[in-house]
């Protein structure tokens, strides 16, 4: 597990985003009213800079025609090119959830500590977290992105729930 300090918590105001480079990849970190999300800054469709120029929108849906339309704010990231939309929390496409997915990263906000000095040139520093790649001052809370690919394992029940219901 490699965790990178990417910013002071105060650097990314609510509604704003920051693009950083981690392990050679461009990653976008969003602050949506105090909740942080991070996605790869590359659209899986044709490679557009998804996080840098994408627009955060709400998502609306209805059960059937003439039924009330539900609206959820700040749920979707819309690609600057062909307008594919992705769930900003999971990176999964609304339009083609099975095939299109943006890589998602775990983000935490944790208290900084004096050992967390990270070099701007990517020098690795040992601290309570493994940190590298970004210069931060360590006064307050810091935003940390985890680049490990491991996902928490699922129970059998959870996995079964995710499968599409059998059509019969």
């Amino acid at each position: 597990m490699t965790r990178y300090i990417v910013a002071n918590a105060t650097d990314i105001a609510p509604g704003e985003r920051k693009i950083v480079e981690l392990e050679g990849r461009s990653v976008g970190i969003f602050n949506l009213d105090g909740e942080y999300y991070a996605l790869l800054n590359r659209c899986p469709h044709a490679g557009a800079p998804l996080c840098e120029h994408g627009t955060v929108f709400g998502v609306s849906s209805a059960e059937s025609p003439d039924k009330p339309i539900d609206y959820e704010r700040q749920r979707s990231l819309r690609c600057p090119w062909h307008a594919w939309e992705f769930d900003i929390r999971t990176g999964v496409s609304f339009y083609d959830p099975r095939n299109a997915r943006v890589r998602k990263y775990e983000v935490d906000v944790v208290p900084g500590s004096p050992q967390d000095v990270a070099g701007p040139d990517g020098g690795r520093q040992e601290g309570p977290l493994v940190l590298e790649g970004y210069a931060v001052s360590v006064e307050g809370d810091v935003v940390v992105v985890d680049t490990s690919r491991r996902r928490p394992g699922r129970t059998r029940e959870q996995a079964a729930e995710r499968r599409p219901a059998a059509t019969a």
Partner: protein
Amino acid sequence: MTTLQERPYTVDLPVPRVTTGIADVDIHPVPPADALTAYLPRRWREIVREYGVRTTNGLFNLGEYPQLYGGAMRADTWPETGFPGSDLDLIRKQLLDLYDVQLGVLQCISPGGQALNPASQALRPELADALTRAVNDWQLEHLVRPEPRLRAAISVAFESPDLATAEIDRLGSHPGVVAVLGLSKTRDPLGSRRYWPIYEAMIDNGLPMQVHLSQGGGNPSTGTGWASYHTEYHVGQVQSFQSQLLSLVLSGTFDRYPELRIMFVEGNVAHFVPLLQRLDYHWETLRSEVPDLQRKPSEYLADHVWVSTQPIDEPDKPAHLEEYIEEFGADNVLFASDYPHFDFDAPNAVFPPSFPAELKDKILRGNAVRFFGLEDGA
């Protein structure tokens, strides 16, 4: 075929070459605010300022269909000031340099907003003439001259062939001009004899025509009326290209003008194939209606009709894209990006990995050489 080199040069510009880079046949420049003023005679400048322009749909400040948010522009193409497509440096950075575009063909469709679309000016042809001349002079001076990778498809007052042919003759031999810009929404179908003088002038000047998706023209945006949704318009707009193709073939226009080269721009590829098969099929039994037609309808394609790729067809099975293109005609399909519009296609991303390299090479390079008549210069 007349080639560019046979034309008299009025300006010192090299013949475009497409060797290691690519050709992009659909780039949309927008004149910055007031840029056209200097090119408009005072009379028309004042008319535009004091009375506005005359559109065929009566909607002076509105488009013909609900426009996608952000003006249907690629969200990362807005310069610090002005419209996407108005900043040459950004066009260089995001398109020409990034993808090594050696020939980028300008399609100045709606300079400064849809109200200036020449098709929409049909009801005041003299104004259409003044505006299209201004657009052409502006793009040649401010885009093509400083950046010779860009060349112009010149805009003309399409619904007034006398004015259109005068403009084609005025600029046809300029080396910055590689095509005449046609429109998919015309008042009459393109095979109509009222447009024949335009084709004659093009051929005299050795120029092909790029018929670009357009609004205006005075007819509804679909065969049965106006579209309610952007999606309806965006998908349904190919109807107009289909009608134009049927008209051009059945009217015998290609028999009359054996050198006529027409490209449909931003009208996809795949849907033309079943249309032509059906046309061939019915022509077999109904040919007595058009007995002077010299060839089977689909046989005109190879010599006369080209299409551009964007917006690319994206079948679930990637191999089908290759089939669509082969069925239309591997020598008659060219790459288009449509920069800076939202449905932009990137040349490094549109072709699936399995796409044959030789076919890709034709679409990105070789076919442009033939369409624009660059053989001698390449």
